């Protein structure tokens, strides 16, 4: 699942020049695709059986991604997640390496070459899982709604997956949030509707590169929250044995914009009636256990309307913005808390008998059902710490290091800043490992400095106290 668009593009170029996919190499037996529309973004996962129909064993096969997900005019690409996994018979999965071709074919698609761990023998088959997440693909219909009106989103996709190989059988499920879709493309008795799920197909013997669009319009009375920027700062303090976390959010409700104006009385009515609304009234943030002194502020001070439920297993911070955030409205806030450092710091003695510290923290935490355009995670290590390595399970990041002086520092503390673009709440599980050592000589710099400073001050006072600056004798009253 390692991919880095720019770099891989070049490699992919070389690759594709050598070998273009030939439809006869594979066939896709029984593909099941599930499009999940219950979140603020589209989660599209499909699993299929790939059978080698060529004459020789194959060590790689091809998939395709809509090139519009990589639009450059967008600030960030829409493709937030792309995972290809190999599923063994015991249902265990292993991620597969892949590379995305830079050039776009006539259908506006870009090919993805996936390398198999072990070459696939002729005639044999394997189960492949493909999981993608795409943000900013859901458009509100209509663009502007009244405060009292429900919000509708429109999804545009395909019935059968876009494949370079023939597909023997495919089914496509579209799952929407709590209500059945109120408009969708349909053909005589297709799709089959059960509850909130549409099932298209089965379609048999689909040609390669077949393209058959679906439109689904569904009611979605849940705020579509887009975090345009998240700044996350973790302060490691050995002396205090504390890990302080502060997150600064700049977010926007990307749903249907509010037509006319906000009417408080209407809002109070809907609050009384507990109506579901596309406006963000409150959000609950799940924090890690053992969290202390949580605070919720914004640019003009503390926001009193928050409520912290200290459940020992999963403590929840219930935050209420100062005002309900309707479509097109913005808000920004700061959320912070403390942890015992022990929970996320391991120390081990290496070969030279020097203690090495390993800090293990989640890359992002916080809000549910959101997507982030820009994420900055910075870890502030204790003074004079020397970094050995920085590892992140979410790898599409750029790393910077800098020096920060604070709290009477003498030598300054190292700051690691990781920048990522275009993440989704699901990537919470990805983690960050920082390995560092604390050379003892750096530890005494600060106390020495402070002590000398104080001593000089005292002596200065003593000396100045002795000096008599009066000119001649002063006669007192």
């Amino acid at each position, binding site marked *: 699942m390692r991919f880095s668009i720019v770099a891989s593009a070049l490699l992919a170029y070389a690759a594709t020049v050598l070998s273009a996919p030939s439809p006869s190499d594979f066939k896709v037996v029984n593909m099941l695709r599930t499009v999940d529309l219950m979140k603020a973004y589209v989660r599209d996962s499909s699993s299929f059986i790939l059978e080698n129909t060529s004459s020789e064993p194959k060590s790689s096969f091809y998939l395709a991604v809509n090139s519009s997900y990589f639009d450059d005019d967008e600030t960030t690409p829409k493709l937030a997640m792309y995972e290809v996994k190999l599923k063994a018979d015991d249902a265990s999965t292993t991620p597969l390496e892949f590379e995305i071709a830079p050039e776009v074919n006539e259908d506006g698609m870009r090919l993805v070459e996936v390398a198999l761990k072990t070459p696939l023998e002729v005639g044999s088959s394997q189960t492949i899982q493909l999981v993608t997440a795409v943000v900013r693909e859901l458009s509100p219909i209509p663009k502007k709604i009244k405060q009292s009106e429900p919000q509708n989103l429109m999804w545009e996709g395909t019935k059968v997956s876009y494949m370079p190989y023939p597909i023997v059988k495919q089914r496509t499920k579209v799952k929407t949030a709590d209500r059945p879709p109120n408009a969708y493309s349909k053909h005589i008795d297709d799709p089959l509707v059960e509850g909130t799920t549409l099932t298209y197909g089965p379609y048999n013997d689909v040609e390669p590169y077949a393209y058959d669009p679906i439109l689904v319009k569904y009611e979605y009375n849940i705020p579509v929250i887009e975090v345009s920027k998240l700044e996350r700062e973790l302060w490691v303090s050995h002396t205090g044995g504390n890990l302080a976390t502060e997150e600064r959010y700049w977010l926007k409700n990307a749903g249907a914009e509010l037509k006319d104006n*906000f009417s408080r009385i209407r809002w109070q009515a809907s609050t009384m009636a507990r109506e579901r609304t596309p406006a963000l009234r409150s959000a609950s943030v799940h924090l890690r256990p053992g969290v202390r002194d949580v605070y919720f502020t914004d640019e003009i001070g503390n926001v009193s309307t928050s409520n912290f439920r200290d459940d020992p297993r999963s403590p929840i911070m219930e935050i209420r913005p100062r005002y309900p955030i309707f479509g097109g*409205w913005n808000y920004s806030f700061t959320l912070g808390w403390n942890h015992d450092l022990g929970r996320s710091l391991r120390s081990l003695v290496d070969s030279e008998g020097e203690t090495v510290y390993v800090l293990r923290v989640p890359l992002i935490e916080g809000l549910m059902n959101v997507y982030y355009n820009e994420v900055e995670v910075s870890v502030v290590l204790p003074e004079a710490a020397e970094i050995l390595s920085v590892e992140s399970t979410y790898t599409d990041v750029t790393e910077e290091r800098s020096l920060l002086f604070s709290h009477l520092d003498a030598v300054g503390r190292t700051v690691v800043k990781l920048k990522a673009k275009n993440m989704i709440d699901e990537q919470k599980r990805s983690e960050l490992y920082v390995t560092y050592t604390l050379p003892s000589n750096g530890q005494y710099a600060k106390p020495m400095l402070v002590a000398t400073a104080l001593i000089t001050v005292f002596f200065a006072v003593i000396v100045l106290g002795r000096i008599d600056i009066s000119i001649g004798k002063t*006669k007192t*009253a």
Partner: protein
Amino acid sequence: MQLPTSLPPAAANALPLLRTLTLFTIAGAAIASRLFSVVRFESIIHEFDPWFNFRATKYLVANDFYSFLDWFDDRTWYPLGRVTGGTLYPGLMVTSALIFHGLKALTLPVDIRNICVMLAPVFSGLTAYATYLFTREMKDHSAGLLAAAFIGIAPGYISRSVAGSYDNEAIAITLLMFTFYLWIKALKLGSAFWGALTALFYFYMVAAWGGYVFITNIIPLHALVLVIMGRYSSRLYVAYSSWYALGTLASMQIPFVGFLPIRSSEHMGALGVFGLLQLVGFAVYVRARVPSKQFKVLVVGSVGALVVLGVAGIVGLTVSGVIAPWTGRFYSLWDTGYAKIHIPIIASVSEHQPTAWPSFFFDTFMLIWLFPAGVYVVFQELRDEHLFVIIYGILASYFAGVMVRLMLTLTPIVCVCGAVALSNILDIYTNLEKPVEEEEEKKEEKEEASPLKKATTSLIEDEASILSLGSMSKKPLIGVYSNWARGIVLGMFTLYLYMFVQHCTWVTSNAYSSPSVVLASQMADGSQHIIDDFREAYYWLRKNTAEDAKVMSWWDYGYQIGGMADRTTLVDNNTWNNTHIATVGKAMSSREEVSYPILRKHDVDYILVIFGGLLGYSGDDINKFLWMVRIAEGIWPEEVKERDFFTARGEYRVDAEATPTMKNSLMYKMSYYRFADVFGRQPAIDRVRNQRIPSPMQDASAAPIELSSVEEAFTSENWIVRIYKVKELDPFGREHAAATAFESGKKKSGARGRTAPVGGHAKGRARVLRV
């Protein structure tokens, strides 16, 4: 009267250390007692003016000092803008900016907001120290420590220096006391060095607060009194001259002050006394040197003539207008009716009202009656510096009586005098040695009394003169005989001191610790509930309106909008342009058809009104409305008439009996727009004015309030802040009224249908700040 203290030398050596410790404790107490608001709410800037100072400070921290001085602020007083750099006292901002950079240099990055919030408490600690020094000059260490303790926790001073009240007064009082201390010191030693120091602090004071004029006048007055009482001395000459010359030159460096010190009559007193001192000094010099009687007479006479000439000159210049005659705030201190007639804006500010007696007691508890006692004690031995205390005492109490906010300048001297009186008592009653009682021994003493003693007694026999120094009372001090007396008196005053602490704590926590931006209220069940409507609305403005949106509101909220919402305002608390304010007043108090052109002319995008009717928040715009009307009437007497807002019976009503002018005014409409709907079928009660707003749901006769040229954009949770958007010109060029009528006609009773009534809004009244 220094009583013999029988201390072992070791203890005597320990005393300075003990004093230092005590002072530190006092400073600690002073700071701690000002943190109620931080503990109870949060570290936040209070009220109105502090928000401007805060904003200016942030500007200064972001830019360098000179660009701060030439700061032209185009985000206030739109479209005029304000030459902010030239029209403010930079002392406060510079102070906190320096602290900020200093800490940064120490790699202690403290948020500038926290510095601004904590500035006042920290400086109050310094004030305690300054007061200690000042009082020590008056009496002795013990009195000094008492005074420091008093000023540390006296509510009169706390009222302007709690954490978060980031206003000029916060540092001004500290500087005031330091300046006075240094003046006394300079006068005692007659040293130019101390005089220069006085000038330095005077300069700092000028840079910090408009109230510096108080110093500018009280020091010359002190000097003048000394001269009149024939207490002229070279010490006085040196001290005064060095202070005046340096101080005046320095003060003219502040852009906002500029040439006032030589142009305005507030400063003429100082100049005159300066001249007088030169003449007197000259006369004394000559008299000392010249033998012949006549010549002396000549010199003295000519000096007298010169004095007369000088006075005449100043008067003449004032009349001819070269020197600005007494005007504005300062003048309104003397001619108390002046402001009400000529400067309604000043008159409209609550802190410019005269002081009722409870405020005095409230702000200084028992000190208020120890104060005169202290003054009397000071009269006992009438040293030069004692005269200063007396003058200060009388003047300050007069000013405090005229203007509530000047309680601030009274409090320090009250504390000083109170401390002098009390420490005097304590000295006597804690002195444990019994005086001997036998009469005859006394007589014998009288017999073989030293000639000096004889002299003093003989001096004491006749009435002590105001001009002479030394003790005033005839009899010699004997001391206290019985321990009962000691016990009773000491016990009583200890109890009073204890109650003093109680009082101060109570007052501070109840009256002076609410940051009027956030209100605390009780729910029906009595639990504390925080009402944060102001910030809710301001933050909405900040986040969801165009960067350059123009917000119109009454001037009280200008600074807050600038600080919290960061949007351009038309008028704010720096009320330098009456006409502009009157324009806003007119727009608020006229019919929509009249207001709309005004709004368009000033590019107003949003209008912000404060409405307490739902919650019972009494400081809202409907209550301030009459001032808007009055100020507007001052400029357009024909178009806006206060009379029209009163019913035939001369009542100010907002219910069904309100006058048509009232009902049609933009302010009224914006305040009560859809207010009745909240109550559904119950009567819509305005909880501030306890009047019943006509509700269409109740009687069909009452027509719902319709707004045609503005539309509701945002209303805060408890309806305290309501923001309206000014509509663009109608695309079809219709009158807005016509357009809305057309719209509403199209969708029948659309408005009515949508309003589901919201029942019982169980919020208590917001607590009034001043208990």
